[in-house]
């Protein structure tokens, strides 16, 4: 069985946020949810300033705090390394969200179909999409995943449940890579089987030194970064995405 992971090459990331957009359309995440989030940082004082970029998907930790705290087992770890959310079971307590050191969880604060960028419940769209609303909904997301046949792919299914990056489980099970990796213009995001030493991410890890985010938290993330350093004390976020409350 493959054990999936992601390697992000910070030497190649231009902070363009194409991965964020690709993720949103692929997974139909509602407004305000960024399963993939790209930080833009600034550090140092003028004129000794430097700028950094850092994409932040879900880390799919091997010791996932979210899976540990989930009271009903809606958040669980799969054998292939993916940390999944069963949107049929989640009760919406958001314990996973407060437990996650990386803040990768997003709650469906309102009807996710109405919270889409184009309101899927707008009757005007029915004419546009040939009688099928929603217009750009990804039909793959309804498919149950894995041998256990649970509903874990994509977003925008149920109000009041938690969602996060699924490593595009519906694509991965179909033999494709994640939407963010597939769309990264600079090929900075590489996804694959970390147990296979010949896979592209494994190769990358052999060539360049790597680090993981907040390793001290003991979460053992399956997302590794190469070509940079962990964020330091004086890093300030610039140009944050998303309206803040």
């Amino acid at each position, binding site marked *: 069985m493959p054990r999936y992971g992601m390697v992000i090459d910070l030497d190649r990331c231009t902070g363009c946020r194409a991965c964020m957009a690709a993720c949103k359309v692929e997974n139909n995440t509602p407004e305000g949810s960024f399963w993939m989030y790209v930080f833009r940082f600034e550090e140092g004082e003028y004129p000794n300033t430097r700028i950094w970029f850092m994409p932040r998907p879900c880390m799919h930790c091997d010791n996932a705090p979210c899976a540990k705290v989930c009271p009903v087992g809606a958040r669980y770890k799969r054998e292939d390394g993916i940390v999944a959310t069963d949107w049929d079971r989640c009760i919406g307590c958001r314990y996973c969200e407060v*437990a996650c050191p990386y803040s990768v969880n997003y709650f469906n604060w309102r009807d996710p179909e109405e919270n889409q960028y184009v309101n899927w419940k707008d009757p005007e769209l029915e004419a546009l999409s040939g009688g099928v609303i929603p217009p750009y909904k990804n039909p793959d997301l309804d498919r149950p995943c894995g041998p256990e046949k649970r509903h874990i792919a994509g977003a925008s299914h149920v109000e009041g449940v938690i969602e996060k990056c699924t490593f595009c489980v519906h694509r991965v099970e179909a033999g494709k890579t994640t939407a963010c990796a597939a769309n990264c213009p600079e090929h900075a995001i590489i996804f694959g089987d970390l147990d296979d030493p010949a896979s592209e991410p494994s190769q990358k890890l052999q060539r360049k030194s790597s680090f993981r985010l907040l390793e001290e938290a003991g979460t053992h993330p399956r997302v590794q970064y190469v070509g940079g350093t962990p964020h330091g004390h004086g890093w300030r976020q610039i140009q944050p995405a998303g309206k803040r409350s």
Partner: protein
Amino acid sequence: MQAKLERLPFGVGQLTPKYLTFVMGMLVLLAIGLLSYGRQLSEGHIITGLRDIGSMGGATWGLYIVFLIYFVGVSFAGITIAAMIRLLDVHYLKPISRIAELITVTALILAGLCILPDLGQPLRGITNLFRYARPQSPFFGTFTLVVSGYFFASLVYLYLASRPDAATCAQVPSRLQGLHRLWAAGYRGTPAEQHRRKVASFWLAIAILPLLVTAHSTLGFVFGLQVGRPGWHSALQAPGFVVMAGVSGVGLVILVAALFRRLYGAETRLDDRIFRWLGNLLMVLVLAYLYFMVVEWLTGAYEGHQHELKLTKALLGGDFASTYWLAVICLVVPLAILFGQWVRNQFSLTQLVVAGALVNVAAIAKRYLLVVPSQTHGTLLPYGTGSYSPTSVEYAVVLGVIALGCLIFAIFVKVFPVIDLTDGAE
């Protein structure tokens, strides 16, 4: 052995206009709360002030969780006091035992009701917990021990302890006679029955004390085991919860007991000795809690880990400073009052009531400061500082829940004597 009564004591069975006005008021509040909850169900949590932690810059747990842990906290008092009376043989405290037990039961109901509006899928919450609850989740303890175990135990305790009074009331002819008879379940006060009561309540008290500690600790573990939130991950979290629960619970018992003493003119039944004892207990608990706070503060400020430091700054001098110092004042002032009373061996019920009220303000503030800042100001990745302010919906729901608590009390006192009729020394 039973005292013969001419009529039902402490206003049981009598409805006064004042009472009805109060009930109406509470019903209105409850209705507003229900309507708000209905709105939240139909429109989603978007109408609350809650938002995602991190890129959305919000707090995902807010007022509902604050009051959940506050209510679980105040539930501490009743059962503790009841158990202490039994185990320490402090007979003169007996008259307040039912008030205390009722506070426990009511508070636990309210706590349960505070979880529901927080859940995104409330009905799933109820069904899925029974189906899937995982022992590994600290919520398992909250759910099983606090809500079912602790609540059920308190209910059993309340019931068993009230049987003699039920039997007494059942002798008075009234519309409630049938109920009281049922309640008494055949209790006649025979020596055998009294013996059984003694044995049962002794073992119950013994069984409840560890449950009490574990239940409150469990709630502390909900926060204390989380390494991802600065300000939460601390071994002090669980004991702190137990002590703070005691502070707020005893404070509330003082308030409620004083209220009923005033309402029913029960100065002889609820005498000063009881209040003095409660005051002293409160003083010790507040002192212990303040000690915890200092330890907490020192750890955050001294170790200098950037996230802990940021949070400590936000608490002591930043966005939460006003709430923080309000909480400190609401603990220090009562301590001063209680300490003064103790040293000078004076007693003033008014002062004690003020102290009881203040510690509850402090309790709510401290619960808020536990839940919210670690979310908005405690992200480990540099998302920037977030903010949370509850909306009217959340306030309405919480007020509705409190109103429901008042109603439970109001109804209880009209069907059953809220002040224990029998003395401790039976």
